[in-house]
Structure formats: C-alpha cells, structure tokens
C-alpha cells in the first residue's frame, strides 16, 4: 500500500509543524545579536561563550545529570523485582499493584508537585538532593515498569525452569538467566526514566532550592524573566545531549521501542 499525493503533503506539513519549534531554537542560538532573531543575521558562537560566563546554567546541567542518574537507578532497582512479580504471577491484588505503580501518570503533575513540597517541608527536607531524587523516582517508575514488564511478559518461563532443574540456586537463576533475558527492557526503562527526570519541570519547580536547581527549572525561570539568546544556546546543548542519548539507545535497544514506550502514557 502506498500513500497518495494528499497524504504526502499532509505528512510534510505535519513534519514541519513537529520540527519547527526545535529548528527555530537551534537557529536562533547562533545569532550574533543581543535578542532572539530569526533568521539570524549571521553565525556567531557568542551565546555559547556566554554560557561559560553563566556558571549557574552549567551547575544546573550537572545537577540534572546527577539527579537523572540517581533517580533512574533508584527507580530501576525498585521496579525490576516488582515487574517480575506483576509480570509472572496471577495473584490477588496484582491489578491494584500495577495500577498503583502507574498512578503517577494519572495524577496531575502539579498536584504531585505541591504534595511533595508539603511533605518535604514538613520533614525539613525541602530542596535536598535526596528528597528531589526520591520524588523523581516516584514519577519515573511508571516508565520503567512498562518497559520492564513488556520484557518479563515476553520472556519464556521454561528457561528458568530448565536452569532450576539443572540445579541452579535462585540467585544464580536470577543473575545468569532472568536478568540477561530482561536486560533490553531494563536498559530501555532506565534510559527513558533518566530522560524523563532530566526534562522534568512541574514537580521540580516546587521542590528545588537555589543549590539544587535543575536545568529545566533554571531555563524556565530565565525565560519567564528575559528572553535573550542565552536560553536558545543552552536549549540547543540540551537538545544535542538528548540526541546523543537517543543515538546511544538506538544502538543498544532500538529507538522505536523506547519512543513507543514514552508515547504510551
């Protein structure tokens, strides 16, 4: 089956619509002027040099990186055993357990944000890195769960039985049989969780303090105040970073599978 001319025109217009805001940000970042200008009147790296004079953006980038790695690690370590339980068994409460772990997708993010703020400030832990990392872990667990669950359900249970019947201990079965079989889902889930945490704004904006400000929060507050091309150059670096992660994932796991996991809310 092939698409007609009308479909091709629609697809091209749709692609322009999807890419326009991203292309514009990248183009604007190369302006030599002091304001957001499109198309840029020349090509200059002025606003990339400006990033070096604004170390708070670099600090925020490093903070987002650390936060993404720590929260994705917490989420993955906690979710893999839960996914094994949910994916295998038919026990009472299985559906409820799955619904609970997917619920952060249903609750409006702003509601989660204020709830974390209220809870952490009661504990006096507002703005701490560990508080931030645990909150992020909660909101990225659904993404890990879905990808790991897909791997667990797709796995042939008889290979574990074979290992047990050959005398392997439970720990050995997990390490040598189960884990390798679900690795694609675990890696995909980890990466998706990392990216989600790295991009997260609505929860973070409530619970960061000046020393734990993440990149999206830093960008947001900068854009809300002024719009100089600095935000465009920082955004371009964030886009390039995402593209690099995507290329890496494509090699490792297949980008299509990760994207479809992201799209399924």
């Amino acid at each position, binding site marked *: 089956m092939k698409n007609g001319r009308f479909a091709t025109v629609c697809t091209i217009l749709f692609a322009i619509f999807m890419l326009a*805001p991203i292309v514009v940000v990248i183009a604007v970042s190369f302006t030599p002027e002091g304001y957001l200008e499109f198309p840029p009147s020349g090509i200059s790296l002025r606003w990339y040099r400006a990033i070096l004079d604004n170390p708070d953006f670099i600090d925020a980038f490093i903070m987002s990186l650390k936060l993404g790695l720590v929260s994705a690690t917490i989420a993955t370590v906690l979710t893999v055993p*839960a996914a094994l339980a949910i994916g295998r068994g038919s026990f009472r409460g299985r559906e409820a357990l799955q619904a609970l772990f997917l619920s952060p997708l249903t609750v409006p993010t*702003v509601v989660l944000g204020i709830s974390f703020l209220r809870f952490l400030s009661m504990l006096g832990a507002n703005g701490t890195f560990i508080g931030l990392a645990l909150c992020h*872990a909660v909101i990225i667990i659904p993404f890990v769960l879905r990808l790991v669950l897909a791997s667990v359900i797709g796995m042939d249970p008889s290979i574990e039985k074979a290992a047990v019947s050959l005398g392997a201990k439970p720990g050995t079965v997990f390490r040598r049989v189960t884990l390798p079989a679900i690795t694609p889902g675990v890696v995909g889930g980890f990466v998706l969780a990392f990216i989600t945490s790295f991009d997260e704004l609505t929860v973070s904006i*409530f619970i960061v303090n000046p020393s734990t400000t993440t990149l999206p929060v830093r960008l947001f507050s900068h854009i809300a105040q002024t719009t100089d091309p600095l935000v465009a150059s920082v955004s371009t670096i964030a886009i390039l970073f995402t593209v690099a992660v995507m290329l890496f994932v494509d090699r490792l796991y297949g980008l299509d599978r990760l994207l479809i996991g992201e799209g399924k809310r």
Partner: protein
Amino acid sequence: MNPFLLSAPALVLFAIMMVVPLVMTFILSFNSFGFYTGIEMTLGLHNYIDVLTDSYFYEIFGRTFAIALATTIICAIIGTPQAYFLTRMRPFWRSVMVLVTLGPLLISVVVRTLGWAILLGNNGVINNALMGLGLTNSPFRMMYTSGGIVVALVHVMVPFMVLAVWAALQRQDPATQSAAESLGAKPWTVFRRVVLPQAMPGVLSGSLIVFSLSASAFATPSLIGGRRVKVVATTVYDEFLNTLNWPLGAAIAVILLVAVLVIMISWNRIVERRFAGVFQ
C-alpha cells in the same frame, strides 16, 4: 517468591513518597491561612467554598477545560489521519516519521515551548512571515492568548494521539482496505467508512490522555500565557510560591484532581459501553 515481598521496596517508596504526601495535601486543603499567622490547623470547607463561589476561579477552570478540549479536538483531527498515513508508509519513511513524531517527546517541554514563543511572538517568525508576504499589516497577537497556548499544547500532545490511533490501526486487517478499494471506493470513502470506525477506539483513548495532560499542563500555559492568561496549574503555582496561601492552592489542586479523575472514569465508562465489542 511472594509477589508482595518482591514489590515491597517499591511499595514502601510509594506509601511514603506518594500516598502520604497526597493525603497531607488533602488535609491541607481544609486548613486555613492567615496573612500573619500562616497555615492554621483548623478543619473546614471554607477554601472549597471560596473557590466554588468566586467567578474568578470559574473563569480559570472554564478556560483550562476549554483549552484542553480545543487541544484534544485538534489533536484528533491532525493525529488520526497522520496515524493512518503511518500504517501505509514504506518501512524507511515510517521509521523517519515515528522519529519526527515521537522524538520531540524526549526534548524538555521548556525547550519546545521556547521554540513556540519565538514562533508566535508579535515580532516572531510567523508574524514576520505574514507581514513580509503582505498578508497582514499589523502583527496577529498569539503570545499571551489562549489560542497560542492551544497551538503549543497541540505540538506537545499530538504524539500521544498518533501513537494511540496507530496502535488501534495495527490491530485491523489491511485486507479490509484493499477490499474496499477493489470494490471501487475512493480514498476518502475508504478512510471514512473503513479506517475511521476501526481507528475510533484509539481516537477515544488518545483523546482521554491528551485531555487529562492538557488540563493539568503547567509549563506551556505558563510561558505562552504569561501572567494574563491563567490556567488551573499556574494558579496553584502562584498560590503556593507567590501568595503563599497553601491551603487555598491545595483546595484548587484537589478540585483539579477530582475533576480530571471524574472525567477520565466517566469517559472510560462511555467508551467501554459504546465499543464493548472492540476491546474483547
């Protein structure tokens, strides 16, 4: 191993870090707030009465749901045919379009919204192009309007619609389309009479996702709408971080949560009754 033992670590995290905070927010919404005294541990419905009797909040809730509805309808109109075209593409172009459609989801909403702010401004790309072509003399105001928010939100949400419809269409038998074509149906007739009915479950589940995410969106309405065009999420933000009236902000948030849940559950009921056969 016992499934609950395996889930225990994640369960503990959810109990402490999600259930407890949500319950605390619910309680907070019944507390009162004094300008000098801060949060007072009283219990009463006054915050809810304040919100539900003030036309200012009705306007904000009305605007939020109108924006979410408009976004959902436009996403369905754009996303449904796009998902259909996707099923008919050659594998190479399909991979390209999957990347173009879903790739932006991996880029921060803040960055994507910045792009829209550059495109939509009075001195922005679209207005300069329109004026350069002589189509309009004065700039068409899109920043700080609900319309501008809808345009940027459609960009954020349409991937979810395309994916939901695409998933529904993958379950259909392509032979039904070929049969219609061989019987002489024109492409539009095939789409309307054969494809659309089979895509409908996807359109409906996609609409639900798009609507609930749009109704609670924060970054896009905040950056495109500015201070003038407030929605529920930005109002909650202002109550918490500017006015510092947390109990009132919590009440608004609880109303948003309940409204979204009620809409989701009733929508699911309607869809399940209407399309009971399709989901079996």
